[in-house]
Every structure is written in C-alpha cells, then in structure tokens.
C-alpha cells in the first residue's frame, strides 16, 4: 500500500459541484422535512362555523361528524368536509331574483321551469320558492352527488303534479293555498324516498300567471267585472235620484191641489159673504139698493169712454138710468 500523500481534495479548483455533493442531500432533506412538518402543522387543526357541521374521513373512510368550534385532527390522513346545516336556503323555481337594490329586486322569468299544464288543459306560469335546510351533514354530502339539483327537480315534479290536478282558475285564485300545501306534502314524500339530508321548511307560491300571449284577455275579464259593477252602481245612483225627485213632484202636486182647493173655497166663501151682505141691504130696501148698484156700475163702466146714444123712441134719457124701464116695445 502506497501511502502517498492523499490528494488534497478540498483544494481542488472546482469547488461548486462539491457544494451540492456535500450539502445537496442535506439541503433537500431539510427542505422536505420542513415541508412535511409545516403541512403536518397546518393540517392538524381546523375550525367549524356556528352554522356548520363537518364530516371527518380517515384514510377516506368516514369516522365522525363534529359541530362548531376549533378541532384537532391527524395531518395527511384526516379530511374535513363542511356543510351549513342551520341556514335556511331558498330555491327559486320559475324565476330568479337578479339584483337586490335598495328599493325593489328585479326578477328574471324562466319559462322552462314555470310553464305548467293545468287540469283543464290550460297553461299557467307558476313561480314558487322552496325553503329548506341541508340539515344532516353526512347525508347531504354522501347520499346524493348533487343534492340541490335533486331537490330542485323533485320540487318541480311535485308542483306540476299538483297543478295538473287543478283548473287554471283555481291555481290563479282560490286554490293557491291548497296547492302549495299539497305540493309540500308531495315533495316531502319524494324527499323521503331518497333521504338525502334535505329538511323541507316550506313551499310558497309566488305568482301564477297566464302565458304572455293570453294576458290581455285575462286582464280584460277583470276590467269587465269592474265595468259590470260600475254600470250597476250608476243604475242605482240613477234610481236613487229618480225616486226622490218623483216624491218631490208628488208633494208639489199635492200642495198645489190643496192650495187651489183652499183658494177656491175661500173665494167662494168670500164672494158669498159679499153677496149675503148686499142681500141684507137689498132685502131691507130693494129698489134703492138695486138702483145704487146700477149707478155704481155705470160710473165705472162708462168712465173715460166715448159714448154714442141713440135717442130711440123718446127724449127721456132717464130710461138709461133705470134698471128695468118699462119696455118701449
């Protein structure tokens, strides 16, 4: 064995590759170790919101459901999946609320969802809302792949079944409450067949409309009904006016007649009184009274008139002033 002087490796001019050879493995190891450590660190705890529950899987298999709060878990092998279990979610069918501005939200109509056939072979546009909770975290996550979509389709099917049993008029007016109650019952039955973690809270009909093309005719019915009411009202008004007017007339006629009657009798009584007064005088002194009356009348009659006298058979004009002069014939 030659024990020569060992070649002094450290003094070789290419020092760079040796850094890697020297330190490469250690650097790599440190990096890997650090990464693993950090992953383990951050992967060993999690938190669950007040409204949530989380399912924990170890090596892929479900082990438990945990409630809200701060929890520890095994890093790398434990997986967490959270679901909101208390908030009530709102599923809109037939329409979508677009923008909620301060005053009024706007809606977009989805005819494919809202157009439904009624029992009397008419077409109604039915908008409704399903309120639900995803109340069981495990079931919501692991029974159905897309539970919200399943719920939406079931809701549509349920409502269509109910609408198919009603007439259009019922759906639009008196039957609304019954329809939504029935739809909820049917939907609950459908949900029960699958048991996928949905908890039904309510089904609410928002709006039942006729199709656009028919809307004018439908509105006209409302107008017609109103017109009928107002026509009848006007007639009543007329009637209420006519009868009192007539009664007023009746009163007037009655009063006029009575006034006439009274006047007539009063006049008769007055005339008769006058006559009877004269009669008394006449009966006391007939010729004198008669003469006096004649003269008085003559005075009044002849006053201011042109009078032509035919002398007649004699010159005795005194005849003129007698009541009953002896006849000259």
């Amino acid at each position: 064995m030659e024990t020569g002087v060992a070649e002094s490796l450290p003094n070789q001019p290419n020092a760079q590759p040796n850094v890697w050879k020297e330190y490469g493995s250690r650097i790599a190891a440190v990096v890997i170790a650090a990464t693993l450590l950090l992953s383990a660190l951050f992967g060993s705890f999690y938190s669950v919101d007040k409204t949530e529950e989380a399912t924990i899987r170890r090596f892929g298999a479900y082990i438990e459901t945990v409630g809200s709060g701060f929890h520890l878990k095994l890093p790398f092998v434990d997986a967490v999946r959270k679901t909101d279990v208390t908030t009530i979610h709102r599923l809109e069918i037939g329409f979508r609320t677009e923008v909620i501005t301060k005053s009024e939200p706007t809606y977009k109509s989805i005819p494919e969802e809202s157009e439904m056939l009624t029992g009397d072979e008419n077409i109604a546009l039915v908008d409704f809302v399903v309120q639900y909770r995803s109340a069981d975290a495990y079931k919501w996550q692991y029974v159905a792949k897309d539970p919200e979509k399943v719920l939406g389709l079931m809701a549509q099917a349920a409502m269509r079944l109910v609408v198919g049993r009603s007439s259009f008029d019922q759906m639009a007016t008196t039957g609304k409450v019954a329809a939504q109650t029935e739809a909820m019952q049917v939907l609950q039955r459908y949900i029960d067949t699958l048991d996928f973690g949905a908890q039904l809270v309510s089904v609410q009909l928002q709006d039942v409309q006729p199709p656009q093309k028919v809307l004018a005719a439908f509105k006209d019915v409302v107008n017609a009904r109103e017109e009928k009411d107002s026509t009848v009202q006007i007639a009543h008004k007329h009637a209420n006016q006519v009868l009192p007017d007539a009664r007023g007339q009746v009163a007037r006629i009655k009063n006029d007649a009575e006034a006439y009657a009274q006047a007539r009798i009063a006049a008769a009584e007055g005339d008769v009184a006058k006559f009877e007064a004269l009669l008394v005088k006449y009966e006391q002194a007939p010729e004198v009274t008669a003469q006096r009356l004649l003269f008085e009348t003559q005075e009044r009659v002849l006053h201011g008139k042109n009078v032509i006298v035919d002398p007649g058979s004699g010159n005795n004009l005194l005849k003129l002033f007698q009541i009953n002069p002896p006849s000259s014939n």
Partner: protein
Amino acid sequence: MSDNRTKTPAEWGKKISVGFIALVVTVFVGKTLFTATIDENEKAAEFSLGRPIRNIEKPGLYFMQPWHSVTRLEKRYMLYDSDPHQIITADKKTLVTDDFTPWRVTDPTVFIKAVGSESSALTRIDDSVYSRLVAAFGSRDFSDIVVKSREEIINSVTEGSRAALKPSGIEMATVLINRIEMPDENKSATYNRMSAERNQTAQTYRSEGNELALGITSTADRDAAILVANAKRDAEIVKGKADAEAAQIYASAYSKNPEFYALVRGLEAAEKAFGSDSGTNLRLFLNGDESVLKSLLK
C-alpha cells in the same frame, strides 16, 4: 493506507439526509404501489391483470398487490335527467314529457362488466324508462295522464325499469315525471282557446251588468211615474171636490134670492165686459129706450 476515520458530523448528516429522503420516497412509492384508498363517496372493483378479484364497498385504506388495479366508481346517487320526449296518448294527442331519476351503482364488478361507464348507464336508463313511458302514455287518454294517473304511471315505470336494470348493477330510485306539456305547435291553439274563453267571460260580465242596470233604472223610472200619476189623479180629485164644494156654497147662498143674484151677476158681467180699462177708444152704443144695464148686457 486509508484512514478508518470515524465519520464526521457532515458525513453523518449526509447519510441521515439521504436515508431520510430515501424513506420519504419509499413511503410514497409504497403507498402508490401497494395501497389504494377508497374514499367515502366511492366504491371500487379490484382487478388483477384484467381479471376481476373483488368489490371494495367500504371506504378506507387497502393493501394491494402492485399488479392489481382499482377502478373507482361514484357511490352516491347520480341524476339521470332525460331530454324531452314526444309521446302520443291513447286519444292521439301528442305530449312532450321529460323525467328524471336518481340512480346509483350497486355491484361495481357487475356494473363495469355490464355497463362500463356512467354515460352508458344513462343511455341504458333512458332506453328502459322511455319505452315504458311510451307504453304507459299510449294506453291512457291525455286528460287522464295530466290530471289523475301521474302517480300510477310513475309507479309502473319505476317498477319495471328498476327490475330491468338491476342485473346491470344499477339501482334506481323513483322515476319522477317532470314536465307534461303540449308541443309548441299546439300551444298557440291552446292560447287561442284560453283567450276565447276569457273573452266570453268578459262579455258575459258586461251583458249581465247592462241587464241589471236596465232592470234597476226601468223599475225606478216606472215607480216614479206611478207615484206622479197617482198624485195627479189625487190632485184632480181634491180640486174636483173643492170645485164642488165651492159650487155648493155659491148655490146655497144665491138660491136665497135668485132675482137679486141675477141683478148682481149681470152688473158684474157688464163691468167685466166693458170694464174701466177696456180701452178709451171703445165706443158704446146705447139705446135710449133701454137702461144702460140692458144695453150693456146685450
């Protein structure tokens, strides 16, 4: 001679590092080659070089020979949602209908052999359900289907399809009918009919209104006329009575002395006829043989 030096810390470090890296790599490789993890939403079939070995239905970590493979399938219910079909009813009307059903895989090995993939499964389901729907609709009338028989149809289609697809490893929940509608071509006829019905109702309302109004006004007018007519009649009676009474008063007074009455009456008549305001141009012809009175009275 080579030194049998004890290893330096640096060399230890290197060895440890390399060993550590080797360990990590081994774990990862081993995990990949020798294990399979089946997740909670999965079920799987294990194959050895194409030959089926077993189903793995419970999730978890499994040891596996490296030459085995695992085909994973969705364990949860998936949605089959059909496209709209046009189907003819017993009374020769066309309906457009679509349906859906949640379905899932039962036996992974059977499913893979019989069906192969999820999309194939959808096709199978579609065929099975559609043919039964056609039969169910074809034996019932339009209004029957829309109003009464939906649940009946659902039940029979579900039963039949479920039984038919079970051997393929497919489990179906209830088939539900979503839409039952008229084809677009028929819709305008429906719209027209709906409009016409409404127009008729509107017309009826308006006619009823007019009829009622007419009744009310004519009754009121008639009653008013009757009131007035009766009043007039009564008034005439009153006046008549008054006239009669007045006449009676005159008669009983004047009959006390008819001659005197004649005189007074004659004078009155004359005065009325030629009264002081009859006009100053009036000329009176008087006969000297008679009294003014007589002349006047002629």
